[in-house]
Every structure is written in C-alpha cells, then in structure tokens.
C-alpha cells in the first residue's frame, strides 16, 4: 500500500514537472551570421506574442545552415547566398527560399582627408585584380576630378573568412568584369588575386584604418555604425549612388526576382539603386513533417512579414519592398503541414 502511494506521488510529481516543458515547443534553425541580429530580435519579440513556441537560432554560417536543413537536423535553415542547383538537388523534399531582408556592401578606404571617392565597377574590378596599383592612376583620377590623389600604393584588404559579404561583392565584380568572372568568380570565399585577408567586418575595417592607402569592403550596417568613409558607386543606369538603406531598397525594387526567389540583385537597372547588394534567405521545406511545428513556423513567417520587416531598418537592414513581400506571403501559403 505504502509503495503504491509512493509511485502515485512520484508519477504525478513528474507530470507536474513535465507539463510546462511539453507546452513550449522548440523550433530550431541554423545558418547565416549576417542576419543574426535581426533574427534574434524577431524571435525575442515573437516570444512575447506567442509564448507557446520558442525559436532557437544558431548562427553557424551559411554553409552549415544549408547542410543542416538538407540533413533535416533543423526545422529551418538560413543562408546569405541562394543554394546551388547541385545542393538543392540533394534535398529530400521541395525546399523554399524565403528572402527576408537585404544588405549592401560598401567600399571603404584610407586616404588623408577622407575625400568622397567615386568609383565604378570596372575600376573596382581592376583594383581588386591588382591592376590599378597607385592611387594617382589615371583611371581613378578620371572619375574623381578635383580630388588630390596621392602617389601611394593601393593596398587591397579583403575578407579572409568565408562570408556572405564576400559573396555579394564578388557577385558584383563578376557582373561588371568579364576578367573577374573568368579569373576569380563569385563565392563566399575566392582565390583573391592580391591583397591582405582580415577576419570579419571589424578585421577589414581595422586594417583599412591602420594602413594608409588601403581599400576594402564591409557591410553597410557596419560602415554606418562606425562612420567609415564610403565610396559612391556607379550603377547600371550611370548614376553614382551613395550606399544607404533607401538606395538598397531601390535596388531590391528594380531587381528581377524569379519564381523560386533565388535571385542576385547586383547591378539592377533602377536609377537610384545602389549596385552592390544582396538578400538573405530562410530555407524551409514546403512539406512540413511535423504538423504542429509546421503550423507554428508558418504563423511566425506571417508575423515576420507583417510586423517583423518594420524592425529591419533600425538594425541597418533594408526591408523588402511591398510588392515582393506580397509575393512571399503567397509562397508561405504554399507550405503544407
């Protein structure tokens, strides 16, 4: 009799202890580091709206994000570049690309007096190919009349770690220069023809700040927060555009986005579009295996595009234009659970 009482007490005790754990569902995601600040803000805010679900996002990098969603160890993945056809073919089900926000890559430099430079794609490619090696090169001077350029070496600084920032930058250079496309190409990390490699935005910015005559590229958000000198870049319609959230949203608006949302938005035709920009994606299976999780995930995505997008600008991400958001809402409806 006594034993029985004990067992009953133990079991009911366990049930009480287990109840809150069971109620909160955990949805796991992993991938890109670039949108991590925004995503963690989203998950934080969303926890207040729907306390029954908790999102756990690990910013392990786009490569890890793609791999983990392919092996289905996470409920959603995230990537700074669209998946390749080769990788997509490995997916056990149809994998949707859902763009969330866009970022831009800006060119920063270290010249005495920090003059406002104007550069175009062809010239940038030549600088990063190691062909333009002096600041007073005629090609730089031609775009920047009135600025006194020193006769010092151009020191190229690039990202050493694989990153979405490098992807966007090399995507742009591949788009504007045949030689770059053939000799180097686009990727999260490439075989750089010249220059020093530094880790992270802070590494590149640090090197550029220290070395007179250095030129490098960093994320718009980072340059903005640290007030770095940035170059105006000539876009596809021939205007020199200063990088800003507005000019990136312009770029998004004029970029051609295909049905599957795997798009590149460098060098879009818009007159006010900043040309070196790219989106970041969530990767979600169209057929959700776990109905309860699938439902919660879709609810979250709907919230992200109705309320979450508005939080992007404060964190220096460019929100998607309304028309694209509407298309994504349709795509989210196609998720089955």
């Amino acid at each position, binding site marked *: 009799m006594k034993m029985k009482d004990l067992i009953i007490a133990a079991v009911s005790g366990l049930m009480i202890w287990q109840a809150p754990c069971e109620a909160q569902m955990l949805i796991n995601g992993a991938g890109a*580091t670039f949108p991590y600040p925004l995503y963690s803000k989203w998950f934080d805010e969303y926890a207040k709206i729907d306390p029954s679900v908790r999102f756990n996002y690990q910013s*392990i*990098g*786009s*490569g*890890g994000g*793609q*791999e983990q969603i392919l092996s289905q160890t996470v409920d959603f993945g995230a*990537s*700074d*570049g669209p*998946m*390749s056809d*080769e*990788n997509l073919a490995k997916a056990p089900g149809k994998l949707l690309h859902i763009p969330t926000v866009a970022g831009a890559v800006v060119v920063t430099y270290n010249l005495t007096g920090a003059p406002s430079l104007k550069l175009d794609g062809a010239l940038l490619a030549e600088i990063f190919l190691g062909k333009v090696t002096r600041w007073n090169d005629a090609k730089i001077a031609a775009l920047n009349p009135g600025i006194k350029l020193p006769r010092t*070496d151009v*020191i190229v600084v690039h990202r*050493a*770690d*694989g*990153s*979405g920032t490098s992807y966007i930058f090399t995507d742009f250079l591949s788009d504007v220069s045949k030689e770059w496309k053939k000799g*180097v*190409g*686009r*990727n*999260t*990390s*490439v*075989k*750089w023809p010249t*220059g*020093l*490699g*530094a*880790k992270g935005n802070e*590494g590149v910015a*640090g*090197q550029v700040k*220290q*070395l007179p005559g250095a030129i490098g590229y960093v994320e718009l958000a980072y340059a903005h927060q640290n007030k770095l000198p940035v170059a105006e870049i000539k876009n596809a319609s021939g205007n020199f555009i200063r990088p800003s959230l507005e000019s990136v949203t312009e770029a998004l608006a004029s970029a051609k986005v295909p049905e599957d949302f795997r798009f590149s938005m460098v060098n879009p035709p818009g007159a006010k579009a900043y040309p070196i920009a790219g989106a970041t994606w969530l990767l979600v299976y169209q057929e959700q295996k776990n109905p309860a999780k699938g439902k919660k995930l879709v609810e979250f995505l709907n919230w992200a595009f109705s309320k979450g997008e508005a939080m992007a600008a404060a964190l220096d991400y460019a929100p998607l234009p309304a028309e694209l958001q509407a298309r994504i809402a349709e795509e989210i409806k196609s998720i089955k659970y």
Partner: protein
Amino acid sequence: MNAVAEKLPLARARRFARGALADRLFKGLAWLMAVSVFVLILLIGYELAHGSNLALRKFGWHFLISSDWDPVNEQFGALPFIFGTLVSSLVALLIAVPLSIATAVFLTEIAPNWVRQILTTFIELLAAVPSVILGLWGIFVMVPWLRENLFPWLRQWLGFLPLFRGPIYGVSLLAGGIIIAVMILPIITSVSREILRSVPGLQREAAYALGATRWEVTRIAVLSYAKKGLFGAMILGLGRALGETMAVLMVIGNRPQIVASLFAPGATLATAVANEFTEATTDIYLNALFEIGLVLLGVTVLVNGLAQLLLKAVAGPANAQQ
C-alpha cells in the same frame, strides 16, 4: 580501492586477495587510460580521413604539392598553408626557445626567492591570456609597432637577406610567428623550469668543487645534464605552435602564398580551417577543409617524430636517463 577494502570486516587472507584484485584493477584502469589517448588520436585521424574522402580521391597526393586554393573552381592544394605553418612555427621557436630557457635558468639558478615567485606567477598569467585577446592586442598594438619600428629597422640592417625585403604591411608571417612565440613562451618556460629544478644539487656542487664559475656550472652541470628534457619542452611548445589559430589568424594576413620574405602575408593550416569552414557550401570544399585538418595532424605527427629523431642524435645514449 584499498581503503575501501580495509574498512570491510574480512579475514586477513581474503584481504590480501582483495589487495591483489585492486592492484590488478588499478593496473587495468591505468592501461585503459593510456590506451584511450592513443585511440583518441586514431579516431581523430579516422574521422578526418573519412570527412575528406572526396578530396582525397579527387586530388590524391596532388593536394600536398599544389599551391592552388580556389573554392570557385574547386581546385584545392595545401602547400602554401603547410609552408605558412612551418615557417611561422619555426620563427616562433627561434624567438621563444632562447627566451624561455634563459628565463628558466634565471628562475632556478639566479633569482632570489621573492623574484622567482612573482615572475612565476606572471608567466602563468601569460599562459592564461585567451588567444583572441592576444590577437586583438596583436592587431591594435603589436602590428602597428612592428610596421613602424621593428620592420623598417630590420629592412634597413638585414635587407640584404631575402627574408627582410619587400613592402611592409605589418600583418605578415613574421608577425604571426612573433605572436605564436608569445603564446608558447609560458609553456616552454614552465616545463624548462621544472626540468632544471630536477637537476640534482650534487651535480652543481660537484662542478663548484672543481672550481667552475657560475656560468660554467650552469652550462656544464645543469644545461648539459638537462638537455634532453629541455628538448622535450621545446617539442611541447612546437606542438602548440603548429596548431595555434585565432591569434595567428588575426595578424598573419591570410594570404596563401609561398614567398621568401617574412614581411609578406601568409596563412597556416589551422587558420584556413577556422576562416573558411563556416561558409563552405559545396561538398568538395568541405572535404578539402577536412583534408587540411588531416594534413595538420600529419604535419604535427611528422614534425614531432623528426624532433624525436633529432633528439636521439643530439643527446646520444649517455643522456638517456633524463
């Protein structure tokens, strides 16, 4: 085990039997622990080989002799990384070993007690500084100083050597080597100090009795006696040097290339993995990075083996007892 056995109320004969059993158990356990280290290394090797399967088959030996590291065209070769690893570790050893041994000699032979205690604490503190912090210090303090002071000076006075030519960026193989030296200094010093302390006092007294000066005592009676142990300390430091990652990554310039100048940027095996692993999206790329890990393991084993051989040749059988 024995203590437990003794507390039990047992006949004396059975207690002996228990003792023997405990002995055997202890022996077995000790064996198991020792073997597990070996098994661990084998498992790491196996996992790395397994993970790099694709790259091993595609590139074969070419991986070790190719200088091409091109993720876009999926051509991978580890040679510049091997070069950077060996050169930066060598530079580190050249700087750290004399400094460490001199420090250890000072601590055991010369320093008064209170200085010894303070200094030892500081050396241990240096060992406790995290790699990333050293890297930050490297970027913001060491590299600018090297670029503006030491490197121009080296180029001016030793510029006739190809080692000290070319443009100065600050971040370089030499900077990488110097930061590794800072990191391995404490471990070599601590181990060397223990080795020197274990030199019997009789050894010194005998030398003094023969009329040797302090320097002669240190050189003949202490250093020569402890040669093998000091070499071991160096190998321990070398092991650390080959695998150092974060701090090196921040100051070495991350450019996989083979050049004569120490002022030029370089890259090491460990930095390549740390830099590129997170964003490697294709299978062959990931496999190549795994193979880099395998090569690093191989280089470490090989260098350690060579060092052991060298030790045998240098120390000779006479010093084998140390």
